[in-house]
Structures are given as structure tokens and as C-alpha cells.
């Protein structure tokens, strides 16, 4: 299924309520609305350009370093790294045990050292048939960059930051997740220098797959805890 890309501008143009207007929907609840977040002041991109130009001319910033760091964040770090960790945890129970005990030291076994310039320690939490873990940062947008890359916009948006802790089940539904009756939801608010990685359950139908094949099935959203991996069906099979 192709994901429809919606720009922030489109939201603002189409959404019934925006921060500035705080419009009330027909039912009188802003909760019914599409999304509520800010509109940066017009001219903000010029203001950014001015600042960067001044910093560059004063020798405080190397514009080539700006491009290099953008490239680093966009291409070198990303959920492929977290997926490697998850796949190993699926095939190697002893690794998983060590990972849940001390994730920062255990991921070095995969040669994953010094990625993402993290000041934080990594913590892995595992889903099970009874527990769905979910990660948020209510105070800012702390996220395990080293393993998942930069966070998606929805993770940084006010709706997710405010609601994940008080109504996680409603939030998970918005991600299309339905939970079994007896499942507990455990929400991890990243309030200090610990970054959380959710180990999703290994999907059905993946018996006998290699670690590499398994890693390819692991999605970013499943490692934030807002997606359940679907049973694997080989292509063409119904």
C-alpha cells in the first residue's frame, strides 16, 4: 500500500482546526479534528538563511559541514540499524536476554558502536502476547536516533506527545492497531538520557528465514511500538 504523503501545508489548508484559529468542529470537540500544530511565521526560511549566512561569513559555521551532516542524518542513520538488532534478538534468545539486561553494551556485539552521537543509554523493551510497549517523549522529542534515525513528524507533533501517555489505546487505534482484550499497554516516557527500542513480536510465517530476511521485515513504527508486524505471506500467496 503506497503511503500518501501529506505536507504540513496541506494539513493546514485542509484541517478544520489549526492552532491559531482553534476552530471548533461541528461536534464541539477539537479532538475530532485532523491535527493541531503550529504554523511557523511567514518568512521563517529567510530568517534561517540570514542566520546561516551571518554564521558562515563570520567563520562560525562551515556550509559544507551543514550539507555533510544533513547527508549523514538522511543516509547513514536509520531504522535499518534497529532492524538488525531486532532480527538478532528474534533468532538468538541469549542475545535477547542480554539486550533486555543491557542494550547499550549488547548492541556492540553487532559492531554497532559510536553511532548517532548519543549521550544516552539504550534500553530495549520486548513485546509479548500480553504486553504492547510504546515509546514517547512528552517533554520534547527524545528518540533513539542511533538505531532509528531522525524521528518522523508525527512523533514530534503535539498530538502524539500529549496523548500517548493518557490514551495510548486511542493513539494505537489511529495507527491502525487493534489490541487483544487482555493486552497491557506499557508506555515509556523518555524523560532522561535513556532511549527506548521496542522489540516487536516476530511475525508468524517467518520460520526458517535468515537474520537478513527478518531484518527486512522490521519497520520503524514497530520499533517505536505503534505497529504490530503482520504475519508474513510470500508474494503471490493469498
Amino acid at each position, binding site marked *: 500500500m503506497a503511503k500518501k504523503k*501529506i505536507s*504540513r501545508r496541506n494539513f493546514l489548508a485542509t484541517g478544520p482546526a489549526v492552532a491559531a484559529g482553534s476552530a471548533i468542529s461541528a461536534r464541539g470537540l*477539537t*479532538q475530532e*479534528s485532523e*491535527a*493541531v*500544530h*503550529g504554523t511557523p511565521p511567514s518568512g*521563517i*526560511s529567510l530568517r*534561517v*538563511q*540570514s*542566520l546561516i*549566512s*551571518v*554564521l558562515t*561569513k*563570520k567563520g*562560525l559555521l*562551515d556550509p559544507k*559541514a*551543514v550539507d*555533510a551532516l*544533513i547527508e549523514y542524518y*538522511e543516509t547513514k542513520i536509520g531504522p535499518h540499524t534497529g532492524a538488525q538488532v531486532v532480527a538478532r534478538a528474534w533468532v538468538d534468545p541469549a542475545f535477547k536476554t542480554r539486550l533486555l539486561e543491557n542494550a*547499550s553494551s549488547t548492541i556492540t556485539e553487532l559492531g554497532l558502536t*559510536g553511532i*548517532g552521537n*548519543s*549521550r*544516552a543509554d539504550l534500553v530495549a523493551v520486548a513485546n509479548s502476547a500480553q504486553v504492547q510497549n510504546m515509546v514517547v517523549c512528552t*517533554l*520534547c522529542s527524545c528518540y533513539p536516533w*542511533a538505531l532509528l534515525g531522525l*524521528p518522523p*513528524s*508525527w512523533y514530534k507533533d*503535539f*498530538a*502524539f*506527545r*500529549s*496523548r*500517548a*501517555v*493518557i490514551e495510548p489505546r486511542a493513539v494505537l487505534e*489511529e495507527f491502525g492497531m487493534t489490541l487483544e482484550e487482555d*493486552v497491557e*499497554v*506499557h*508506555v515509556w*516516557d523518555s*524523560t*532522561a*538520557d*535513556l532511549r527506548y527500542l521496542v522489540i516487536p513480536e516476530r511475525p508468524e510465517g517467518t520460520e526458517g528465514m535468515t537474520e537478513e530476511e527478518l531484518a527486512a521485515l522490521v519497520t520503524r*513504527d514497530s520499533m517505536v511500538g*505503534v505497529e504490530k508486524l503482520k504475519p508474513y505471506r510470500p508474494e503471490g500467496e493469498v
Partner: protein
Amino acid sequence: MNGIHDMGGMDGFGKVQPQDSEAFHELWEKKIFVANRLVRTESLNAGRSSESMNPVDYLSWGYFGRSLHSLEEKVLRNGLVTEEELKNPEGRLARVVAFPVIKAEEVEARFQTRRGNRIQIDVPPKFRVGDRVIVKNEHPRGHTRCPRFFRGRQGQVERDRGVWPFPDRLAHGLRDKPQHCYSVRFAATELWGSRADPKDRVYADLFEDYLEEAS
């Protein structure tokens, strides 16, 4: 501080937009985000400066607008750039004394290096795993990593996460008071009453100074 950034549990921000899944929407967002990370100053915790934004701007500027605020504030506070220079970037620019600029070829090495904040010193922990604790009902005016919705609530220590600098002091450039940080487990109903599912839990990583023993 009891700022607008402390959003856990607020209503009214609408639905989550899972399809809005890219990190950036516009080029200026990328530029300001990385520029803010490349310009490093001695004053610690500049990244928290968005908490000092007025709440209306905080809400309306967006995530990357807050990066802009943060970088402007940082360079002005450190005297690297003046208000006049920002207003008139084509005008005369004052000289700056030596500043450690990160070069393009250094970027990968610099940003790969893991500089853990955790401290390897032996500070005896006040709490043990399984202890019942109450989050102190304190409302500091300065920076804190204890969200409001945990204050006054009772939880249980799940894990001891080791010794770290205390963020409430680090925000003022002080590395005193290193202390244990604990993952504390709360019943969702303890935080949200009948609105929560009795099966659910919320965890937070809380510093020792935020906590007291439950009687």
C-alpha cells in the same frame, strides 16, 4: 518550569497523523536543524532553550522553528552574533575570536562518536528495585525533567539506570549532584484515574532528587 513543553496528558491537539512520517518537510528545516547541532558553545544545555520560548511561539513555530529560536538564542547569548547582524546580514560584521568550527570532513567522525553522559562513579543509591516511591510535589522555576503529571503520584522502582549528572543543575552548567536515575513504573490509573485502562502502565526515568520513599 511548568512550561508549555510539558504536554503529557493535555487534550485538544487532535489526532495523530501516522502518514506524516518524514523527518523534514522543507530544506530550511534541515539546514537549521544541523546548523544548531554544528554550532557548539560551552554553555551547556542550549538545546533546552525552547523551554524558555514564550508559550504562544512554542506552539506556533513548530519543531524546526524551535531549532531556529535555539540557535539564535545560543549565538546571541554567547556574543558570537549581535542583534544588528541578524537584522542586517549584509551589513558590517564584527570579528569573532577563535571558535572551534566543525569541518565537513570531520562531521562523520564527530557525530559517530558516542559520548555517554552516564558517570562511572560510585554513588550509593537511595532506592532499590521494587521500592515504592512518591514523586515529590515540587514545581521548580528552572529546568527539570520531571513532568508535571507524575508529581505527587506513587510508583514502584523498576530498574536502577545508574549515575548521571542531575539535569536540573546541568541546565545551569553545574555538574554537582550526580545521582541515580530510576525507571519508575506507575499504574495508568494512578496518573489518570478512571480514564485509564486498569491494565496499563506508564514508565518514566526519574532522578533520585525527584523521589521520596512512600510511607
